[in-house]
């Protein structure tokens, strides 16, 4: 892996490292003048570990730089028009609320008393990171979450671009264009909710895993990002299960590396869930009605219709890409890419969450369907960009044939 991609991945690992160490030090009751040096030291070690291998010098290309810079400026310019001051409803009602509690060493456990609508069982990658920077800045300020979200939002297309441009600048540019033209991605990116961060970590796990064949150490990185998915949102646990199941053979052979990577976020999550967080409402409210939900075909239709509407409204280009790709696979009588099947399995998992949901289904779909698809959008773009770019390497004719 080249140095540019590694630095983008380092930012993701940095967020994970900050949030986990900050949460653990909050439990220990450490003051900020102790927490900050500990976290900075950990970040330095992490940086040196990530960059310990020799990396061949890379050449700058004015075209690559110009395309990336223009793309990012366009995304930021759109974000300026789409952002709300305090973020969307869940941003202040959940994520920034949790950050404000975690930034207060005296009253942070008050967070767990807010059982109505505040979801104190949600994992802490995002709020703990904001809380750490708030402590450094002397208090919570809206600029802190906004800056963090903009950086994460930009890291996603940058990582796909840096991973693709060496194989094909045209494909990398088209992938970047997908982000520039997708208002939903940008709106969610600056909504100050945790979905984009989850999308970034899941994408990073995919990217690292693609290098596992040539460098086994990448399994540690991929596992770390999977752990951070769980540490970011509850649905991250489902994404991780799907990822691990699809790659069970490799993870069983490399179980030590899996544990090295996933260990710290998993332990932090266990401490949080077992020691502090109330039970998740989706789990606790399951009852005999759940069986009725499973056999209620109207429910399936309602979810399907809502998803199709959301896809047609926000992800039309991706929809056509997926349909064309499936059609291509059918014509060539071959199975789709395993990564693509993995994403479909994640979608199926999300679909079942709605089936099991005890909440009003229409409201649940309205408030979250677009966000769940947003979480998977970057990996879909990455998988397609990666496939097209690899085919482009074999010659333009093959790209046209696909």
């Amino acid at each position, binding site marked *: 892996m080249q140095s540019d991609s590694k630095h983008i991945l380092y930012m993701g690992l940095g967020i994970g490292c900050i949030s986990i160490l900050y949460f653990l030090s909050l439990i220990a009751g450490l003051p900020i003048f102790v927490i900050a040096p500990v976290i900075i030291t950990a970040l330095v070690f992490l940086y040196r570990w990530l960059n310990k291998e020799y990396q061949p010098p890379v050449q700058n290309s004015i075209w690559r730089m110009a395309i990336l810079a223009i793309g*990012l400026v366009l995304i*930021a310019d759109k974000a300026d028009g789409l952002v709300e001051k305090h973020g969307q409803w869940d941003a202040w009602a959940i994520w920034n609320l949790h950050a*404000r*509690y975690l930034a207060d060493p005296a009253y942070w456990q008050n967070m767990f008393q807010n059982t109505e609508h505040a979801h104190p069982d949600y994992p802490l990658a995002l709020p703990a990171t904001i809380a750490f920077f708030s402590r450094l800045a002397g208090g919570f300020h809206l*600029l802190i979450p906004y800056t963090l979200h903009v950086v994460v939002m930009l890291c996603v297309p940058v990582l796909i671009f840096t991973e693709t441009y060496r194989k094909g600048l045209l494909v990398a540019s088209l992938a970047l264009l997908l982000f520039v033209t997708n208002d939903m991605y940008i709106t969610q990116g600056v909504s100050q909710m945790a979905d984009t961060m989850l999308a970034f970590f899941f994408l990073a796990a995919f990217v690292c895993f693609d290098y596992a064949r040539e460098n086994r150490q990448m399994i540690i990185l991929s596992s770390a990002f999977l752990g951070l998915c769980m540490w970011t949102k509850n649905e991250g646990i489902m994404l991780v299960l799907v990822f691990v199941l699809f790659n069970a053979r490799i993870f069983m052979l490399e179980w030590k590396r899996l544990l090295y990577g996933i260990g710290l976020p998993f332990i932090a999550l266990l401490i949080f869930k077992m020691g502090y967080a109330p039970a998740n409402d989706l789990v606790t409210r399951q009852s005999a009605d759940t069986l009725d939900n499973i056999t209620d075909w109207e429910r399936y239709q309602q979810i399907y219709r809502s998803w199709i509407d959301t896809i047609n409204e926000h992800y039309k280009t991706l929809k056509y890409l997926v349909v064309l790709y499936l059609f291509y696979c059918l014509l060539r009588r071959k199975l789709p890419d395993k990564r693509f099947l993995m994403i479909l399995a994640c979608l199926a998992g999300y679909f079942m969450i709605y089936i099991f949901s005890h909440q009003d289904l229409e409201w649940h779909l309205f408030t979250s369907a677009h966000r769940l698809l947003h979480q998977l959008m970057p990996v879909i773009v990455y998988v397609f960009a990666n496939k097209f770019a690899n085919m482009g390497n074999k010659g333009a004719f093959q790209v046209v044939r696909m």
Partner: protein
Amino acid sequence: MKTPVLLTILFFVAGVSTWSYHHKFSKVQDDMDKLAAALHPVKDVVPAGGTVSFAGNADITISSQSRYILSPGIVLSENKDTALYIYPLQDSTMPAGNILWQHGDDRYNYYITTANAE
């Protein structure tokens, strides 16, 4: 692409975006800011670490915004002796109990009451 160049582009764009956000909203007062201004004195009435009930005739958005504004020192919970009442301006209902503090703005009337005489 050389890493310093990449990071310069990334952080320059993020920095300009943050500056633009600050420039756009620093002087804008939205509903949340109005509520925050109205509830600012509550922190003087209810001691840090205290818990109050949310009552009155305001919707879930106002109760959630109040929780956000009063965090982390004050927690909104149910069935507490001290209560925060918020009524729309056109609602002339008065809260029960002893009124410790009250305030009004162009949208709501706000009261902190306690069931016990203190």
